[in-house]
């Protein structure tokens, strides 16, 4: 049980797909203009990565080493198509807002990377938790970016006004340049935190 928790937990912060591994950055910048969009994208990726990990893990003994990457891509593309059709049927407005980025989940490096690194070598249950952890880490990162962008750029969270009428929205946060600059500073902040922690640890071991 503890093992499984460890596998799940590492995806959340220590190996966070966006901030630490810097994989799959396109969606993190493109669909985080509102919290609702960011959350939908995060949950779609969570579903795709978990389902794909399970499929890859189940078929790991059947798939020949030489053709494994095309097989993974086909499996991912199938699951993504399922997500696309479900969203199109039940949440048409979100489907429209996410647009092309939903189809592009197919080529997200993080999904292929987890299939290759983890699911192809492990049993079904650990692979399931690995996918869940990575997906949750991805969703957390998307939410963190989306909350800041919607709050500063529109003065709202999930459509509800937070600041009241005096706040003059900084439109740049919704526009593309704001996304680049915000992520740049966020990465800087995380690096600073890790450096502080590291130097504290070093000092602690010296004394």
């Amino acid at each position, binding site marked *: 049980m503890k093992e499984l928790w460890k596998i799940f937990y590492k995806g959340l912060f220590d190996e966070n797909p966006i901030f630490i591994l810097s994989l799959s950055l396109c969606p993190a910048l493109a669909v985080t203009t509102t919290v609702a969009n960011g959350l939908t994208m995060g949950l779609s990726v969570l579903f795709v990565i978990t389902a794909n990990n399970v499929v890859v893990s189940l078929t790991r003994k059947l798939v020949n080493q030489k053709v494994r990457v095309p097989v993974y891509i086909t499996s991912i593309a*199938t699951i993504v198509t399922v997500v696309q059709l479900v969203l199109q049927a039940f949440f048409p407005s979100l489907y429209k807002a996410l647009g092309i980025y939903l189809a592009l989940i197919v080529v997200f490096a993080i999904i292929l990377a987890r299939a290759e690194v983890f699911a192809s070598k492990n049993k079904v249950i650990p692979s399931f938790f690995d996918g869940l952890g990575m997906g949750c880490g991805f969703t957390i990162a998307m939410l963190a970016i989306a909350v800041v962008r919607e709050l500063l750029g529109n003065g709202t969270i999930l459509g509800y006004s937070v600041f009241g009428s005096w706040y003059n929205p900084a439109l740049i946060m919704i526009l593309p340049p704001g996304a*680049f600059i915000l992520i740049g500073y966020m990465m800087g902040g995380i690096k600073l935190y890790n450096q502080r922690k590291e130097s504290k640890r070093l000092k602690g071991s010296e004394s």
Partner: protein
Amino acid sequence: MKEYFTLFIGSVIVNNFVLTKFLGLCIFFGVSKSLNASIGMGMAVTSVITLSSILAWIVYNFVLLPFHLTFLTTIIFVILIASFVQLLELIIKKQAPALYNMWGIYLVLIATNCIVLSVPLLSVESNYSFVKSIIFAIGSGMGFALALILMASLREKLVYADVPKALEGTGIAFILAGMLSLAFLGFSGMI
């Protein structure tokens, strides 16, 4: 004629794929450390996008549409493009080893990349005619190359700058891309 020109300028500058649509960021940040690599990558991406757009257009309009299989577009395009790039790599390796030594490495990287997949998807979604989809593909590829080369030139100068330690590497690259994107924002409304 005017329509085609607008489409071309639109895809190169106004709707630049990297700086306004965030596609192809992995390559954009990975390769832009050196100017020479950026030029090679820009060329490789432009030609692959153009060829795979042509292929995808033919498959979509002559196979998927007549048989009502449009819900399979994503799967078919991914497989089509990935296998096409692999094939291209094999052919170039056999027929033009000199070219392969120059650009071969980039071909491997772009086999499954968002920008290469998204251009055919977008041109199919907007119902472009054959000529229009070719122009759109060339424009998008050149826009990507333009952004990449600009970024690489800036980053080569960045080596001499005194950057705060925490922002070194990816952090400052993102902020730089933000500035570049701000400049490109000035073109919006031109068309």
